[in-house]
């Protein structure tokens, strides 16, 4: 077993070596040492064999002069020779920093044994390393982008009303407990495969550039649902769109035409951030056009991406929705509580409504009420409901 130990302190390297020698008897151990990140990268590069075959494990400290642990992580993530080579990060940093490092390596798709606080329990590290061998290797980034073999090239054929089913999740006013509206959430149903959720098919749709067509399908089905059930027209209807949709003039005109045909429906477009940089001027013009036509704009997934403050400054949003990842564990996660608290305060100053998504328990709801949040959405009130059950749900909710 060939182990590369990177630490700027010699006694740490020695103690790791000693621990390994005590632990591993059945196979010969060979140690390689480096006292800086740069020296370690040299060792990983300059071999007859690719690094992943030359070494069985890299143990790296984070804080070093002359190339720190992050530079090793970067090298291992970008160099194909290192693909699959197990990496253990050791550090005397606090738990939060270690969590951050762990998240970074997750996103890099490295073969991470773990992030360990010093002094390292080598026995524990070794157990995890052994477990790693039995774990299926992580999928390559490209193959993740399919639904059971469906690629972005083929998704177009599946995007039609035959395969689309919308579910509707209620938004409830926290103080009066009354229903204010519903958000339409899409599911794809292909033959007998149950429901396929947006987190799996939206990336494919975006990659195929079919987002406008898809948003139109959703809009059509949702507006029809509200048209067929006059009882639902007292509630707003939210439909998700991406920023890229707003760049299509055809789409904007289509939405406006739909809204003019059915003026009784209070339509809200929930804008999710898109990754690509887009034409801000065109975006603003589209939004202005929608607002003039009585269509409300909501900023979805607030807090999840970076440019949201910028957006808030430019665009007259009617409401912001705080992402469910911040809400669902609000009562046990102090960081999330702080973020939500300040978001609600910000919204109040800007005079926009706040919707908390992902409310699942009574204790979270009570906290939100205390923080002055107006509207809540989540499984606590109801999971997303298929169109045919929405009216019945409204009736039974109102009776309670």
């Amino acid at each position, binding site marked *: 077993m060939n182990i590369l130990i990177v630490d700027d302190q010699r006694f740490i390297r020695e103690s790791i070596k000693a621990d390994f020698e005590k632990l591993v008897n059945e196979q010969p151990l060979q140690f390689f040492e480096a006292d800086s990140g740069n020296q370690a990268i040299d060792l990983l590069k300059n071999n007859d064999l690719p690094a992943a075959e030359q070494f069985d494990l890299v143990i790296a400290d984070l804080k070093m002069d002359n190339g720190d642990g992050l530079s090793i992580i970067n090298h291992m993530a970008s160099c194909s020779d290192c693909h699959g080579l197990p990496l253990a990060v050791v550090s005397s940093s606090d738990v939060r920093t270690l969590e951050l490092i762990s998240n970074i390596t997750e996103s890099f798709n490295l073969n991470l044994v773990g992030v360990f606080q010093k002094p390292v329990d080598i026995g*524990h590290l070794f157990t995890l390393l052994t477990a790693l061998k039995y774990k299926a290797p992580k999928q390559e980034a490209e193959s993740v982008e399919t639904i059971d073999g469906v690629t972005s090239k083929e998704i177009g054929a599946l995007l039609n009303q035959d395969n689309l089913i919308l579910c509707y999740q209620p938004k409830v006013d926290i103080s009066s407990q009354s229903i204010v509206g519903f958000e339409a959430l899409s599911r794809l149903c292909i*033959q*007998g495969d*149950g429901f396929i959720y947006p*987190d799996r098919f939206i990336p494919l749709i975006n990659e195929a550039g079919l987002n406008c067509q898809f948003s139109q399908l959703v809009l059509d089905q949702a507006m029809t649902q509200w048209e067929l059930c006059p009882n639902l027209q007292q509630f707003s209807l939210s439909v998700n769109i991406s920023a890229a949709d707003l760049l299509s003039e055809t789409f904007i005109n289509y939405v406006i035409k739909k809204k003019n045909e059915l003026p009784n429906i209070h339509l809200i477009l929930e804008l999710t951030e898109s990754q690509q940089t887009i034409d801000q001027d065109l975006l603003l013009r589209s939004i202005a056009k929608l607002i003039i036509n009585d269509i409300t704009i909501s900023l979805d997934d607030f807090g999840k991406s970076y440019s949201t403050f910028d957006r808030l400054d430019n665009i007259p949003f009617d409401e912001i929705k705080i992402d469910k990842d911040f809400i669902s564990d609000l009562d046990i996660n102090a960081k999330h509580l702080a973020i939500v608290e300040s978001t609600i305060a910000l919204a109040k100053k800007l005079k926009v409504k706040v919707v908390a998504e992902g409310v699942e328990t009574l204790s979270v709801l009570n906290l939100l009420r205390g923080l002055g949040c107006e509207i809540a959405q989540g499984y606590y009130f109801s999971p997303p409901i298929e169109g045919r059950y929405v009216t019945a749900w409204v009736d039974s909710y109102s009776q309670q």
Partner: protein
Amino acid sequence: MSSTAYCYTSDKDSHVFSIFLRNTRQHNDLSQEQFCLYLREQSSLFYNLDTITVSRWERGVNIPSLAKQAEIVELYNHELVDIYGKDNEFLNECTKLLALPINKRKSYHPYYHNDAYLIEEIDNEHPCFHLILGMILQYEGNPCLSLDEIDRQRKQLAQLKINVATAFGGQIIGHCLFMETRSHIILELLNFKINLQDITHQDAQGQANAVLVLSSAGATTQIENSLMSIYMYFFASQKHLTYLSFSVCDDSFVKKLNGAKLSPFKVKSVSKGKNKVDITSFLVSRSEVMANRFLLKLAVISPSNLNQIIDVGVKGKQAR
């Protein structure tokens, strides 16, 4: 809506949904045009439906997804389990999921090689209830499921439903643990607000609307399926149960559910001593169950049906 005779055995080659559609339409004295118009007025899923499509469905040229079939079938006060449960061809497919393979060696289990087995319900009166429940909780290793002194409080554990599969006169080769409860309680459990101990001590306020599965395992795929069919049938046969939830730590069962095209609702890590345990949960609506062919297949197998299937597999041998 009056009831419809929706299954004629003479229509052997037609798809069960085509037969349902044709009979329902004729029973209600509707032409294909009228029927199409009716669906367009009733459901947003069919706002752009045309008569040609209806005709194709009836002739079985193509069949809509199970989710869309459910929408139509429910307009006429039926459920997919009702109509598929009466279709012989479908039942045959279901049997294949459960029946013991004829080739005994086709088993990767160290000692169980598709031998005859029994499935038995273990209620809280059963003399071994506390031992079996203890074993299942041990197997699952879910920190939210710890119970103190099972034997002493067994009276309070009447909600817990246990089934075990046994072979060789008593060796347990599979089990399932589930309960009827309310969706709010499930959400509290999945968010670690309460544990199983709290659930069993709570008075059952309000009507149950969900089935919560806490452990499910079998030595072979067929035994796994047989045990799954027990709670799937329990769930499907009671219309007031609108959610099916799983909260499990067993990796292989999570893989099985993923393989059945279910997406997890949450995955949460909890420390248990020095180790971390991943609790994976699923929350599936009734419509989603019906729209999933694998789950639907398990849901149409009644307990008596299940016993028959297992019995056929051991024909000629002494089962007990």
